[in-house]
């Protein structure tokens, strides 16, 4: 037995305390004159002996408790020397069943060769050997197998549509090393094609695994590799019913690739492109896919990109890309301000917004408040007013009709609110809040909107606003607003006053921003957040989006306003890549899918149908053969064997086993602590 922190053993000297106390202590008793001592005599010897026994026992118990505590802190280790006959052969097999192993050079596939090699290895092992098998693609371990069981498990392995996961294999190996049978002869066999992706994972291993013996075999073909793959795709735009996609195709092999790239959506819409790639060449090809009417309505379009047959691995010839199409819509924005200067900054921001891809067509018209006419309202989809003036009161009925018909009425309030106009708009349920007393006090905006899930608000814009230092924007003042009972407070000032109120009226929306144009809107629009704030006010954006993930990514589907059908639900049923139905969690504005179960499509089972494409990790099927010397170097670094392994650091001892004793000591200590008062009290009787 040894102690890791032997210095704590000095704490055992504390036993001197109870010993000295025992020696010095005099029993406390009271004197009592008595007459019939002869009748006590028989019991006297018994009593005194019991008392002595009790004192001694208690002293021993207390000393033992102190010594045990000291030993516990010293972290005792018990060395168990093992006989050679006690050690067993444990074989840990890391078998690569990732997608790249499906490659075939015309004869057997890589995976078939891997299975043959593994079977040969298992058969050559001793009959009493134990096998632990790890499938590198899934990271699943099958442990404690006998020879026959191991053979059966190896034969049952299948290629999985995914990349290798070396970390699970190595962490499982480390656990096995630290386990009770760590003294066993642990041999490791790694069978893989050691693609650059896999090799990179081995290179990145921080701590070597201590094993007795390491074997590895790169499963490669002697022939030149013939493989091309679609490495990625990006949606460029949607114009005139045609979806433009840039597709990255890589030739991972040494043979020239003359293939046909086809983009397909639905049963009868496809766009083929002939491609030509030399050895190890990567190129981007543009595909235009006619989506017809689907491009004019809001939907998620599944687009399958595929390469024609002609290489040794078909699993990477298909790419799944879901395109979120917002539908085509022109938006007319009417900016109504007292003067051109007042709306200049807002116009600039809106102009900027119109040039981004957020909106299909954002047409801006600027009028002064006094010239605001009914015809303007007829033209506009969004009306932004820099102030509440008497002219708005005159047009109250028309504005109500405009909003009820689906228009968006955004109204800033200034220091000089026309109270009559405000009252008229309020009475017609147009205003989300009624401005009251103006408070001329400098104040800051809350960093984040308080209600970004309200219908009529672009939640992406709301989230992006939180990325700006909006709380640094200092406003000159604000109004004490009385919110409409049906209105929602979207944003607050830091002093608790409302900044943005929203109210639905008919099929339209009315927004009131509790700032003045000059002092506050100016501040807002001068800030970095100006474009984001305009986007926030103007409503949902219309942007093409891609729902495309790799196999090892966390699948999080953003939900736009179109997907508000899922709002209020906690879970949504989805169909995963293998056709199974699973529940996806709705979290805020996202849909979380736990496991895609392969590559292919994920889709929601309830309307609206949302697709997401799941693909192989990039470079997974890069079939570049490993360099033998480099591979040997990596393996020797990852697996420390024999003399190279530092047994202390690795925590594995070959001929003897260190068993920590602290648990035993702790249990004994607890028992003693329980026994001490029991002994002390019991023997007093």
């Amino acid at each position, binding site marked *: 037995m040894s102690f890791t922190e032997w210095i704590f053993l000095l704490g055992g000297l504390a036993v001197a305390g109870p010993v000295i106390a025992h020696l010095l202590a005099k029993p406390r*008793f009271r*004197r009592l004159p008595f007459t019939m001592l002869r009748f006590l005599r028989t019991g006297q010897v018994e*009593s005194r002996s019991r008392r002595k026994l009790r004192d001694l026992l208690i002293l021993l118990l207390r000393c033992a408790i102190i010594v045990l505590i000291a030993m516990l802190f010293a972290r005792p280790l018990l060395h168990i020397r093992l006989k050679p006959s006690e050690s067993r052969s444990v074989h840990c097999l890391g078998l690569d069943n990732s997608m790249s192993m499906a490659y075939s050079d015309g004869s057997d596939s890589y995976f078939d060769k891997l299975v043959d090699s593994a079977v040969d290895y298992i058969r050559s092992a001793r009959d009493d050997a134990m096998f632990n098998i790890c499938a590198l693609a899934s990271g699943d371990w099958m442990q404690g197998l006998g020879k026959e069981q191991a053979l059966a498990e190896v034969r049952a392995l299948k290629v999985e549509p995914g990349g290798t996961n070396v970390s699970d294999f190595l962490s499982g190996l480390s656990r096995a090393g630290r386990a009770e049978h760590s003294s066993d002869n642990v041999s490791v066999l790694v069978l893989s094609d050691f693609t650059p992706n896999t090799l990179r994972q081995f290179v990145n291993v921080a701590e070597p695994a201590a094993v007795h013996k390491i074997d590895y075999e790169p499963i490669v073909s002697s022939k030149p590799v013939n493989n091309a793959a679609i490495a990625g795709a990006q949606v460029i735009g949607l114009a005139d019913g045609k979806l433009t996609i840039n597709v990255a195709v890589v030739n991972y092999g040494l043979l020239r690739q003359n293939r046909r790239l086809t983009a397909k959506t639905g049963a009868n819409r496809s766009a083929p492109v002939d491609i030509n790639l030399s050895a190890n060449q990567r190129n981007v090809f543009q595909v235009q896919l006619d989506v017809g009417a689907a491009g004019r309505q809001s939907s998620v379009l599944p687009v399958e990109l595929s390469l024609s047959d002609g290489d040794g691995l078909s699993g990477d010839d298909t790419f799944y890309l879901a395109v979120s199409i917002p539908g085509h819509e022109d938006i007319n924005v009417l900016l109504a301000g007292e003067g051109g200067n007042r709306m200049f900054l807002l116009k600039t921001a809106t102009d900027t917004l119109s040039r981004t891809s957020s909106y299909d067509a954002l047409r801006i018209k600027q009028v002064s408040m006094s010239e605001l006419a009914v015809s303007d309202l007829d033209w506009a989809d969004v009306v932004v007013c820099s102030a509440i003036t008497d002219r708005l009161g005159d047009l109250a009925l028309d504005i109500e009709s405009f909003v009820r018909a689906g228009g968006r009425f955004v109204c800033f309030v200034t220091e000089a609110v026309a109270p009559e106009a405000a009252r008229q708009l309020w009475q017609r349920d147009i205003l989300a809040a009624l401005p009251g007393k103006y408070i001329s006090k400098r104040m800051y905006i809350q960093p984040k909107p308080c209600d970004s899930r309200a219908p009529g608000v672009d939640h992406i814009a709301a989230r992006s606003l939180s990325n700006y230092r909006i709380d640094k924007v200092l406003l000159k003042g604000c109004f004490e607003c009385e919110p409409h009972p049906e209105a929602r407070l979207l944003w607050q000032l830091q002093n608790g006053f409302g900044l943005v109120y929203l109210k639905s009226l008919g099929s339209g929306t009315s927004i009131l921003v509790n700032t003045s144009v000059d002092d506050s809107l100016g501040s807002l629009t001068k800030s970095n957040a100006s474009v984001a704030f305009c986007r926030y006010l103007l409503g949902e954006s219309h942007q093409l989006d891609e729902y495309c993930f790799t196999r090892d990514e966390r699948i999080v589907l953003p939900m736009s306003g179109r997907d508000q059908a899922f709002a209020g639900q906690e879970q949504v049923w989805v169909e995963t890549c293998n056709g199974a139905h699973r529940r996806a969690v709705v979290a805020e504005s996202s849909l979380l899918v736990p496991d895609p179960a392969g590559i292919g499509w994920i889709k929601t089972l309830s309307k609206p149908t949302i697709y997401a494409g799941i693909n192989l990790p990039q470079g997974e099927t890069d079939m570049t053969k490993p360099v033998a010397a480099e591979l040997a170097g990596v393996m020797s670094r990852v697996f420390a064997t024999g003399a190279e392994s530092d047994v202390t650091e690795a925590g594995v001892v070959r001929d003897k086993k260190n068993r920590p004793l602290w648990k035993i000591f702790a249990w004994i200590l607890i028992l003693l602590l329980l026994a001490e008062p029991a002994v002390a009290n019991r023997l007093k*009787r």
Partner: protein
Amino acid sequence: MRQNRKYLDPAFLSKLGNMDLVARCAVEGFFAGLHPSPFHGFSVEYSDHREYHAGDELKFVDWKVFGRSDKLYIKQFQQETNTTAYILLDSSKSMSFAGDGTVSKMDYGSYLAAALSYLMLSQSDSTALILFAERVMKHIPPRSRRTHLNIILTALQYNRPAGQTNLAGVLHTIAETTKRRGIVILISDLLDDEADIFQGLAHLKFLKHDVIVFHTMDHQELNLDYEGLIQFEDLETKARMRAFPQSLREGYRKRVSEFLDNIEKTAGNSGIDYCLLDTSEPLDRALIAYLAKRKRMM
């Protein structure tokens, strides 16, 4: 009744201080508490009339009745049977034990001796008081005068326990020195060799004495109700012993019970009246025992 019993309570009597008062309280409290008494006294006094029969002594004819009724009636008298009572009070150190600290065995014995003396002398019995420990320390010879009570009570008042018990020796001494037979009342804790004690008592019985043993024991001596670690110190021998009484209690009670049973059994076999008195109890048990004995002597 309850009010009268208060005067028999040793704790109450201990507060009186004056032994004369103690004796008076105890005895009168005792009689006041009784129902119409069966104890008519033992002096010469008229008892009844009966018709004259031939052979009756003429001196007992009640001539006054004859003068009134011309019939001869004989006056019957209760014959006075004056006796001598020897009260032996153990005054050894062990008698000073007071378990709860109020009334020691010595106090209790003294109250009892005083009450008995009062009772006896009021009946014109000669009463002697012998105080002893290892030997007889004070011997007040028997007298029947009422003034004799003062002498006895004074002796009791100033008696202090001292010395070890030598009960057997003392009993032999008394047996040898008492000329007239009577009632020997032994008040003691009997903490001596049992065989020796009963040899001494047998000696007295042999001399035709009537013997009553009042065995005074403290409540703690009987029960050992102490708790915690205690160093017991013997009052007579000064021997010491440290023990947890709770661990000894059971055995102790058993041995004490055997001791008392043995004494009672031996006393019964020897024709000795035995009365175990707990010093926490009133005196009436002792007085009843005495009067019962006295009646049997009539």
